């Protein structure tokens, strides 16, 4: 199945990616061939088969007790932030 240019642009928007106009045809071609490739799965008979999300039989993910275990490391963590002020992460103005 071939994806249209609009579909590719929409997927990019959903993924919060901005594609250069010149690179869209290549992504369109690549994604179309990937979608065609995974379309092979249609042929598999899976009636009555439950989806498998966890690779170990009978196991699901543990939940930890809802208790505070981490100390406040804000300053340490914010050393990696692109822009902070007064302990806050800065982003462009969101509300006018």
């Amino acid at each position, binding site marked *: 199945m071939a*994806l249209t240019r609009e579909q*590719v642009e929409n*997927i*990019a928007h*959903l*993924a*919060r*990616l*901005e*594609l250069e106009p010149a*690179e869209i045809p290549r*992504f369109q071609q*690549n*994604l179309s*061939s*990937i*979608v065609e*490739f*995974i*379309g*092979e*799965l*249609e042929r*598999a008979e*899976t009636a009555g*088969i*439950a*989806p*498998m*999300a*966890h*690779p*170990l*039989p009978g*196991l699901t*993910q*543990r*939940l*930890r007790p809802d208790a505070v275990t981490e100390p406040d*490391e804000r300053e*340490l*963590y914010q*050393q*990696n*932030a*692109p*822009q902070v002020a007064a302990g806050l*992460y800065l*982003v*462009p*103005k*969101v509300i006018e």
Partner: protein
Amino acid sequence: MYRQTLTQLAADLRARRVSSVELVRAFLARIEASQRDLNAFVTVTAEQALAQAEAADRALAAGRGGALEGVPFGHKDLFCTAGVRTTCGSRMLERFISPYDAAVVSRLKAAGAVMLGKLNMDEFAMGSSNETSYFGPVRNPWNRALVPGGSSGGSAAAVAARLLPAATATDTGGSIRQPAAFCGVTGIKPTYGRVSRYGMIAFASSLDQAGVIAASAEDAARVLREMAGFDPRDSTSVDAPVPDYLAGLDQPLSGLKIGVLKEFFDTGLDAAYERCVREALQVFERLGASVREVSLPNIPLSVPVYYVVAPAECSSNLARYDGVRFGHRCAEARDLEDLYKRSRSEGFGAEVKRRIMTGTYVLSAGYYDAYYLKAQRVRRLIAADFERAFGEVDLLMGPTTPTAAFELGAKVADPITMYLNDIYTIGANLAGLPAMSVPCGFAAGLPAGLQIIGPHFAEARLLNAAHRYQRETDWHLRIPEAYA
């Protein structure tokens, strides 16, 4: 001394026949000399390594120290290392300094291993050739015109060229086993949940697992023994006892039932590579194992299943790179959406974008059932095939890859051709099984890998079989001429 195995080096350190500082200096010199040709490292931590080596020598002099005290070591650059940058092979994290150590890093540090640096890899572990790294491709030490495999290409190339005795690696669809096969070294991907993923940068959470690449199965066992075990900080970590992988080596193989994976020999397998694998199977027969053919009828669907499940999980995991809290941020964003979009578009390379977009597509409204749920159903069929097989045999064996290493640039134009390289390795990830690649000869002068797959938590059985095989053969001791 670089020719010695990690096991020998650890014994020499313990007996004070060599100091950690001497070893670290020798390996650092090899790393420096090879970096232009191989590009195996993203970051070399020479100063910290020498300081750590001095501390290790003091501990050893006092008769103290862990099982790997003073042994030079390296980490794939997706394990967080406190105070040392952790890039995941991406521009997105080019300047990211982790505030903490990954569980694997702190466990190996506690065992005394000395980190010499961070190893190059495909960007966010998405690739099978190491060509997607923002820091440039790694080259194969056997022939520098060839890829080392991926995504743990730096780890495999470094061990093959004896720049390090062993290194950590990770495997989501073959990223330990495929480069180990291409570079002629030994790699093990443990059972899903065996090794903590705390501090391991996420790619596909239902598949990712940490492991090790080393020169021999015995070395891998020695390292894995220190890495494995329950960690409450990783919700996928399994609380089950860890057997002593070293004590489990040298068990006789008489009576061992080996299943040969029929589908792995059906199509696309290189003839010379096949001969290497068949000869390896004969070695196991001579050691008393019985070999019979086993079929996994749904295994041909493992690549399409993987290319739904892994991108879906990747699109979700990589949503965290938003240019706000850490990672690359674009200049002069107009508004928040522009900040997200341009930061991500500048920070991620083409393959990562392809995977994120594939994942976004298969999870989007109207397609979720047709692709994602369907793939999860087929995944269960594949896991059930393995379960049936392990009702009849103790281990499964086959080739690790369809061909030996290919040329740089040969498969970058067509993602599907690249994806099909992992056709034999993906099944073990989908089913969460432990799997290894062991050097088993040379196909037209290039290393071939024998893949061994076991039931859940059978790492000891895998390592024992590989070790017995390596006592009969010397493929794992071959070193590329340029680095011998």
